[in-house]
């Protein structure tokens, strides 16, 4: 355990170093037009830090590991950009040269601006409105971004891990190796999440989804804790994708009793039934919405807090303050590690609860 903490500590240092280098580069080149010279050195540092934290939580088009700010060199590898703009446009993200170059593909010109791809003219001009938002046309961006890439890797990892575990059971009934650790979790989801919320009768048909969603979220949360700077689950599109699947499964597997409780609540007078119907119907959509926001906000907040704390280490030029912030960061890192599990658990738990509502049988004694 102590060694693990040591490694974590080293990672954090490395992470912070990389981040610092990265923001410096951004400040110098990415926002060249900003009045850099008018800022005091401290203000500049602060804006770099906030830019770094923001950048860290966003999805990007290349797998950036760190930058050397003395040479302005980036270390990492490009990822494929896939655009749909009256036809498929596929090229590597390295062509954008981190937003400094305009890419020509099949007669169209594209430029990367603040992590988004816009269609431009041949000179790569981007027109901004008064809020500094680009007004250019945004083609449908289906790129394999960093988040997509990491998700793919994690999905592959999860698949290989659990297939390996499943194979292990063919050889012997007792869990071996990784199964020793993961079997209790699988049983936990079955015995403490699925069965109490859904009931003995129907829980089996939801187990596949509950297990997948739990490990998917947990592993993606965990990869977010590494200094690679990925923030998959703290992204609204990701949590939306997960929440909408929960929503679809809930509605498609719901029984008559579920719909009756929504549109014609039993056991209350008729006027109440009419008042309750729209509220209940709204609840159907609020539930997955809450799922989506909860996971997104928790993971994003965790990343922002940790990123800010690491940034503070570089703002203070005082060893005492740095030491205490390092301790605080370490502490919050451990809390965040717990949050990764907790959020996966909560998502799975609430999903199971909604499934439970959907298949609840009619009980006369309740009304």
């Amino acid at each position, binding site marked *: 355990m102590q060694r693990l903490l040591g490694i974590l500590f080293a990672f954090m240092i490395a992470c912070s170093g990389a981040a610092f280098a990265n923001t410096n580069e951004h400040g110098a080149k990415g926002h060249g037009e900003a009045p850099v010279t008018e800022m005091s050195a401290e203000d500049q540092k602060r804006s770099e830090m906030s830019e770094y934290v923001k950048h860290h939580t966003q999805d990007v088009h290349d797998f950036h590991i760190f930058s050397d700010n003395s040479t302005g060199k980036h270390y990492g590898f490009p990822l494929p950009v896939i655009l749909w703009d009256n036809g498929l446009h596929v090229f590597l993200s390295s062509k954008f040269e981190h937003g400094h170059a305009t890419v020509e593909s099949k007669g169209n010109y594209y430029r990367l601006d603040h992590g988004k791809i816009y269609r431009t003219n041949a000179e790569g001009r981007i027109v901004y409105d008064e809020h500094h938002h680009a007004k250019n046309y945004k083609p449908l961006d289906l790129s394999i971004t960093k988040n*997509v890439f990491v998700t793919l890797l994690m999905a592959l990892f999860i698949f290989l891990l*659990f297939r390996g575990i*499943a194979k292990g059971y063919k050889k012997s009934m007792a869990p071996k190796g990784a199964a020793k650790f993961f079997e209790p979790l*699988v049983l936990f989801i079955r015995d403490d999440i699925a069965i109490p919320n859904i009931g003995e009768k129907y829980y089996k048909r939801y187990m596949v989804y509950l297990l997948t969603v739990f490990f998917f979220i947990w592993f993606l949360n965990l990869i977010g804790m590494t200094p690679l700077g990925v923030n998959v689950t703290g*992204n609204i599109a990701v949590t939306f994708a997960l929440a909408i699947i929960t929503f679809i499964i809930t509605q498609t597997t719901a029984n008559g009793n579920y719909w009756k409780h929504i549109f014609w609540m039993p056991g209350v007078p008729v006027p109440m039934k009419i008042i309750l119907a729209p509220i209940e119907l709204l609840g159907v959509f609020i539930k997955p919405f809450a799922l989506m926001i909860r996971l997104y906000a928790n993971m994003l907040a965790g990343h922002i807090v940790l990123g800010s704390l690491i940034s503070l280490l570089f703002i203070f030029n005082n060893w005492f303050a740095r030491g205490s912030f390092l301790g605080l960061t370490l502490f919050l890192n451990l809390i965040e590690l717990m949050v990764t599990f907790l959020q996966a658990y909560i998502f799975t738990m609430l999903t199971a609860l909604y499934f439970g509502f959907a298949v609840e049988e009619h009980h006369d004694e309740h009304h």
Partner: protein
Amino acid sequence: MEKLLGEFSVGLFFWQSVIFLALLFLLRKYAWKPILNAVNEREEKIAESLELAEKTKAEMKALQAQNENLLKEARAERDSIVKDAKETANKMIEDAKSAAKTEAEKVLTSARQSINAEKAAALAELKTQVAAFSLEIAEKIVRTELSSEDKQKALADKMAGDINLN
């Protein structure tokens, strides 16, 4: 809210859904079903084994009780057999004793009878023999008495004297 929508990436949503659903179906086939089946199977097996153990225990108990009963019965039987045997033996001894006694008495009686008969025969023979001896002795004496003239005369005299006396 505007910022939230601005951050929403359709591409990411698309790929996430695709990857997640693909993972869902792959895991269902290659991981969750085999794992859950194996775990269920194992749980059933454990439950069965426990039940079996309980059953075996009960059976063992019943068997033990039965054994004890059998043992008790066997003991009782043995006791009764031993008792019977003793009784039989005693009876046999008694019988043998009484039979022997009767036999002995019988033998004794017959022996007595034969002894008596032998005795009677011997006595009878002895009488005959004594009579014969007496006759012989008497003859010899008579013969001696009458062996010479003088003696015959003396005897005749004596006899005559006796006759006179009578």
